[in-house]
């Protein structure tokens, strides 16, 4: 069974006080030169949490920005700010106070004491954290500051600082054992806590079930154990326990910076051998390395850039037919006999695995090497580490006569990446690219990536040898698992070629008022275009077709399969008749207008961009622009339909334009002009995007699609379109249950066009820009107001799987209905059903929830 990379997650913890009190550069200086200028100056060079969050390399690390975007950011980066939040697509950046709370939660031996006020605040913050809320109860009531200070003064406890003040301590775990002293316990708890945070993010961001993990390999650079077994372990199991992976065992792998790549190879080998089906690799961060190059940074007037701890986690599983293969046959290793010259090292690590696979240097799309952030290393005189590695790979290709010397810069540009990882030893080594590699090898157009990890063993004073290992990851041609019929029909090779170059979109088969046949015929019509592939998901109810059918038993498993295939990148977009988008997401329809046949994007047609009418329409305008841009209209023109609130929307958009998000308004056809549009402008529009509230948009979409048929059969247009918004992470397009064959076909064409235009990436970029221009503040001011008028003390019940819908609630009451249920201990989420807003609850709580809502008048009797 081949091994595949199922997911990867990355976390940073911003720990400014730990730079000063725990980083070895600083602790050494305090011993050697306690009165040094450096120690006096360093306080003025510490970044705030906000600065660390907007620091472009940190955003890349958590998936908030791509390496390509970083490459386009002018160097140096420390004075640039990226749009992005503390939670990214692949992980998060945690502030110091929450992280100290996590250290307490990681403590199984009552070693960590937190000051009572601090404990209270941290507890509240953890309660609100998306993956750490369960840890809040482990914080406890806290201790008096005097007791903590006594531990530090009299019993060698390691102080924990926040904003320069002592807020807690880590006690020693033994009176004389140096391996269990307070300092070592502190470092090990940090490693455990940050590793567990990465692990939890892996589950959250990749939708991986912690209960499915069978084995964990921890690969940091710390050692835990007592004086009889220094480094005895086992961080792996401690982290698995903390993250709730109760079905896993595991062990630690050490190899300095090369350890994560060693661990990746081990994980893939365990899966390949069939020993375990699901193996995680994980590592937390090291406080010792904080501010390692601080002296150079301070001397050059820079902020101390090494102010974050790093952590990562990745999951290797048995072949799912979709995720990239971690090819255990194509590995490289620096052996004892390899030698230490750069040629010898690069030959062993890069040329050897290529040779094994009969590959050329240029067959690898991207090499992931030591991904250290050059912003950190260059001022410290260590140069640009990734770039040096890429030059060496290129130079090796020259010696192998695969490249001309003059082509080195072009090779580095094409096959290299900028460095973005914090200099936390093992953290930058090969693995920071795993998440992006998964994107490239599934959704992107890449076919192969090489992961290279290297380590300096002399630091342990056991050998002067160097070390390193490497492994190639490949696109999964996975026809066996995904589509036996297609493989048989076309042969494996033709399928492989198709998978690499073509976009595949799908449509779900259930829910049409005209039956499954209506969907199948529409899909066949779209597939005949030939520019993209079409698959069907769900039961086809006996309808015969040559299209790829991904059969499922029922409607629930159909939706589950759809999400799975979208997440894995096997399909790039999916058309369906019903989907619960979160609030904040609404769909951009596309219709053909009757006067001159011009296509018009209706923003929006289902879903709720915001519960505030004006904000919703402003958002709709942005969503419409996103969609039109993804469809290839470079500068879409926008009209706002003359509805209640239109003038306020126009004003808001103009203000956003002044702040940097310019919307190109169209002029009404009517004599009095203006950007506010009337009926004429619908029938014969002069704009690309028409903005309306989604209920009006919904009616318009129906009118345009079915005005010639009476409504029961939608004959023209492209359907209700893709869900766009901050919460839309998959390309899902909506059709009406009345949509006929031509509309089904057009919706698939629309989906393929949007996938080709990478609409989700366009949405990320446009929303970031719009947020900077005030879109974000629009909602926070609004929310702040709501909270003030009605303070609800919500004691959050634990998150549950919510599958039961309760409809009939007014959109403006939706948030209150959810809050009410939560306050009564029923976990609830808001969403958009096909007939309007819904509250979602667990199926077991449905009756109880309906009762509560009836009693309070949210739904009728």
């Amino acid at each position: 069974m081949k091994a595949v990379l199922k997911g990867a997650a990355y976390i940073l913890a911003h720990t400014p006080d730990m730079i000063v009190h725990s980083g070895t550069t600083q602790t050494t200086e305090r011993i050697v030169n306690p009165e040094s200028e450096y120690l006096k100056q360093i306080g003025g060079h510490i970044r705030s949490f906000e600065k660390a969050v907007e620091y472009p390399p940190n955003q890349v690390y958590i998936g908030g920005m791509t390496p390509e975007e970083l490459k386009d950011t002018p160097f140096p980066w420390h004075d640039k700010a990226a749009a992005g939040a503390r939670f990214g697509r692949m992980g998060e950046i945690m502030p110091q106070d929450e992280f100290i709370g996590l250290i307490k939660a990681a403590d199984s031996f009552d070693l960590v004491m937190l000051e009572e006020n601090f404990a209270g605040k941290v507890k509240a913050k953890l309660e609100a954290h998306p993956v750490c809320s369960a840890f809040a109860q482990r914080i406890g009531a806290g201790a008096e500051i005097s007791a903590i200070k006594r531990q530090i003064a009299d019993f060698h406890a390691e102080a924990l600082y926040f904003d320069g003040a002592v807020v807690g301590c880590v006690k020693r775990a033994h009176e004389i054992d140096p391996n269990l002293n307070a300092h070592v316990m502190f470092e090990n708890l940090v490693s455990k806590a940050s590793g567990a945070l990465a692990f939890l993010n892996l589950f959250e961001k990749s939708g991986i079930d912690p209960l499915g993990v069978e084995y964990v390999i921890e690969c940091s650079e710390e050692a835990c154990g007592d004086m009889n077994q220094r480094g005895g372990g086992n961080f792996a199991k401690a982290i698995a326990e903390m993250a709730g992976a109760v079905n896993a065992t595991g062990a630690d792998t050490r190899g300095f910076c090369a350890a994560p790549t060693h661990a990746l190879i081990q994980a893939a080998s365990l899966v390949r051998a069939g020993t375990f089906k699901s193996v995680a690799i994980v590592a937390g961060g090291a406080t010792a390395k904080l501010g390692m190059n601080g002296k150079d940074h301070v001397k050059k007037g820079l902020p101390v850039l090494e102010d974050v701890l790093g952590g990562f986690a990745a999951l290797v599983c048995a072949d799912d037919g979709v995720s990239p293969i971690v090819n255990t046959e194509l590995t490289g290793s620096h052996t004892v006999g390899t030698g230490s010259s750069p040629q010898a090292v690069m030959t062993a690590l890069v040329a050897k695995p290529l040779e094994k696979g009969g590959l050329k240097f240029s067959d690898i799309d991207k090499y992931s090497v030591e991904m250290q952030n050059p912003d950190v290393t260059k001022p410290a005189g260590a140069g640009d580490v990734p770039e040096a590695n890429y030059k060496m790979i290129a130079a090796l290709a020259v010696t192998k006569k695969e490249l001309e010397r003059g082509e080195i810069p072009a090779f580095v540009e094409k096959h290299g990446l900028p460095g973005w990882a914090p200099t936390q030893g093992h953290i930058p080594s090969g693995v920071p690219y795993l998440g992006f590699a998964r994107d490239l090898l599934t959704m992107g157009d890449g076919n192969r990536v090489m992961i290279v990890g290297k380590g300096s063993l002399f630091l342990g004073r056991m050998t002067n040898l160097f070390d390193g290992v490497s492994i190639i990851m490949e696109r999964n041609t996975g026809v066996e698992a995904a589509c036996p019929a297609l493989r048989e029909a076309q042969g494996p090779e033709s399928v492989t070629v198709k998978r690499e170059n073509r976009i595949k979109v799908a449509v779900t088969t259930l829910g049409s008022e005209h039956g499954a046949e209506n969907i199948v015929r529409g899909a066949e019509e779209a597939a005949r275009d030939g520019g993209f592939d079409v698959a069907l998901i769900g039961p086809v109810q006996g309808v015969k077709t040559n299209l790829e059918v991904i059969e499922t038993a029922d409607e629930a498993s159909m939706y589950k399969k759809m999400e799975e295939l979208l997440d894995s990148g096997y399909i790039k977009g999916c058309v369906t008749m019903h989907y619960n988008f979160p609030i904040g997401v609404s769909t951009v329809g596309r219709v053909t207008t009757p006067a001159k046949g011009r296509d018009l994007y209706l923003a929006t047609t289902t879903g709720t961009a915001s519960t505030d009418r004006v904000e919703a329409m402003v958002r709709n305008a942005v969503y419409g622009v996103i969609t039109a841009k993804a469809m290839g209209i470079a500068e879409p023109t926008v009209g706002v339909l003359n509805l209640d609130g239109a003038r306020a929307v126009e004003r808001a958009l103009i203000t956003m334009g002044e702040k940097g998000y310019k919307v190109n308004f169209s002029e009404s056809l009517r004599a009095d002009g203006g950007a506010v549009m009337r009926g004429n402008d619908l029938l014969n529009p002069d704009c690309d995007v028409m903005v309306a509230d989604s209920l009006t948009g919904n009616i318009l979409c129906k009118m345009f699609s079915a005005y010639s048929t009476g409504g029961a059969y939608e004959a023209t247009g492209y359907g209700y379109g893709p869900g766009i918004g901050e919460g839309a992470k998959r390309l899902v397009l909506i059709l009406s249950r009345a949509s006929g064959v031509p509309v089904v076909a057009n919706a698939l064409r629309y989906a393929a066009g949007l996938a080709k235009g990478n609409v989700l990436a366009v949405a990320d970029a446009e929303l970031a820009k719009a947020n900077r221009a005030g879109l974000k503040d629009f909602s926070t001011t609004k929310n702040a107001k709501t909270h003030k008028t009605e303070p609800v003390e919500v004691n959050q019940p634990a998150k549950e799987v919510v599958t039961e819908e309760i409809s009939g609630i007014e959109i403006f009451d939706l948030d209150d209905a959810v809050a009410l249920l939560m306050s009564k201990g029923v976990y609830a989420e808001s969403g958009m059903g096909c007939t309007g807003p819904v509250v979602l609850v667990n199926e077991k709580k449905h009756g109880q929830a309906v009762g509560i809502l009836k009693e309070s008048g949210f739904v009728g009797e």
Partner: protein
Amino acid sequence: MDLENQNRVKNAAEIHGAENVVVVIGAAEGEAAGLAAETVTNGDPTYAGSLSGVSLGLRVIHCLEQEFKDAVDAAVYDEQIGMMEMVLNVDEIVAEMVSIREQYGKY
């Protein structure tokens, strides 16, 4: 320069005499090469190691410099170092080395 390496250089100079020691630098870029060279000639500019304030003025050369290349077996050089000529900024490193030798070299 690594603190332990400073000790080793200092000990070598004490045992064999400063005039009999040549330090070969392998740093990957100019500034780092210059810092290492300065450490073994003028003393540790970062005042962290045992060569702080100790001006040994040793002979110092970078392995990418022509004189070093001429002094070793060409085949071995090519196998061990040759590739790096394509990778590193040789001119910058050499200029830095020459400058340090001119300023602080005693032999």
